[in-house]
């Protein structure tokens, strides 16, 4: 893939078009699994788990703007994640974690609540987002995960102007907070 196509793909992902992720997955899956299992004595199942993990890291980092200056190809990037995880696993003498989400969400900050409490809170937000209306959910995701500007969201969602989008975002966040509180109360009952 040419560098310009690669940057266009990352930009497209950032704009919320996740169909590209499927293309990346299908393009490199087989080669990745064969390469990892041949060169690093990894069984096929584990190599597949690692590929899924690499794809999610790629996606997360693309959203965080960490790939805006990516010098290598997407393929090299994915393969490097796989290789590093295998080496890390060998160093720790342990199997790769079954739960990729454990590895993707960073629990290491000392000021965060303890890990279990933190995971419980994330799940409450996740559940509250499922109860939120589709447009609010999309608006929140485009703002906080895809990190789009108010202008970009206005254009993507067809709102009147960025002030309208900003007001809607405020209302959606308030609604989400109410839902999170409701979920917390139900859990505490």
């Amino acid at each position, binding site marked *: 893939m040419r560098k310009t196509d690669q940057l266009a793909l990352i930009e497209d992902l950032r704009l919320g078009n*996740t169909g590209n*992720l*499927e293309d990346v*997955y*299908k393009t490199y*899956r087989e080669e990745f699994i064969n390469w990892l299992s041949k060169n690093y004595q990894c*069984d096929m*199942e584990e190599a*597949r788990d690692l590929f*899924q993990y690499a*794809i*999610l890291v790629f*996606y*997360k980092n693309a*959203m965080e703007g960490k790939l805006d200056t990516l010098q290598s190809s997407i393929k090299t990037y994915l393969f490097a994640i796989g290789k590093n995880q295998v080496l890390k696993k060998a160093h720790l003498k*342990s*199997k790769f974690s*079954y*739960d*990729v*989400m*454990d590895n*993707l*969400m960073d629990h290491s900050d000392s000021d965060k609540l303890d890990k*279990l409490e933190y*995971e419980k*809170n*994330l*799940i*409450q*937000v*996740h*559940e*509250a*987002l*499922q109860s939120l209306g589709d447009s609010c959910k999309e608006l*929140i*995701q485009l*703002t*906080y*995960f895809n*990190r789009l500007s108010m202008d970009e969201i206005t254009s993507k969602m067809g709102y009147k102007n960025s002030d309208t989008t*900003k*007001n809607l975002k*405020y209302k959606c*966040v308030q609604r*989400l*907070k109410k839902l*999170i509180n409701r979920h917390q109360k*139900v*859990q505490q*009952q």
Partner: protein
Amino acid sequence: MKQEDLDLIDKYLLGHLAAAEKVAVEERLAEDQLFYDHFEAQKLIHEGTMFNALMTARQKIENIEASMESASSKSSNSIATSRIQIKRIFAVAACLGIIIFGILLYQKSLSSNQATFTAYFEPYKSVFTNERTEGVYDGELLIRQAFEMYENKSYAEAIKLLKAAIKNDNNPDLVFYLANAQLANGDATSAINTFNKYLLLSTEFKPQAIWYLALAHIKLDQIEKGCELLNKTEEFDTTYREMAASLSKKICK
């Protein structure tokens, strides 16, 4: 929280503030408790949104994986079929023999895996025995009835009630018990889907869910996958470790 404060916190968390503005926010966080509380709540929304997006993406790639596996299995079946057709005149009798022998072997292995499953499977105990106090689910008649059915081993009824309860209350514990009820009711395929869904929602019963997933795969004669999950069960320091090790010795290479 005022809209201006929300916008300010969002800009801070997204890294959109200049150095001086960042310092001003940090000073306010140290002095203003209410602002600090809003900040923490907003930070959780940012991280929870990322968690939600990654969960969705993960589900999506698992679906792609499943469709790719199914396509690959169809394609290999089709190749096998055409080979049989080419040689059919010379090999009908041999093929029939092989097929019958294969079916017999398969049935034998299925019944042996079924026996292994029966020997090791015991549904996770109900929340109304000694795991939890009753107050947890008070006011939730549906859930109470579901667990009564579960405890009475009326799993088909428990499945219906748990599904209805999950519609009102997406509590991961209910999903875990639904998967158990499905497995106890003989529907290992649905149980696998439900246990996987549970693992996306919660890690509280993670070792247990992986153990039951292993048993479900063994029941379906998916020994390789079952053994892989047994190895994973052994990684956790739980009561399932010994059972997983013993079962693994019996059925895994």
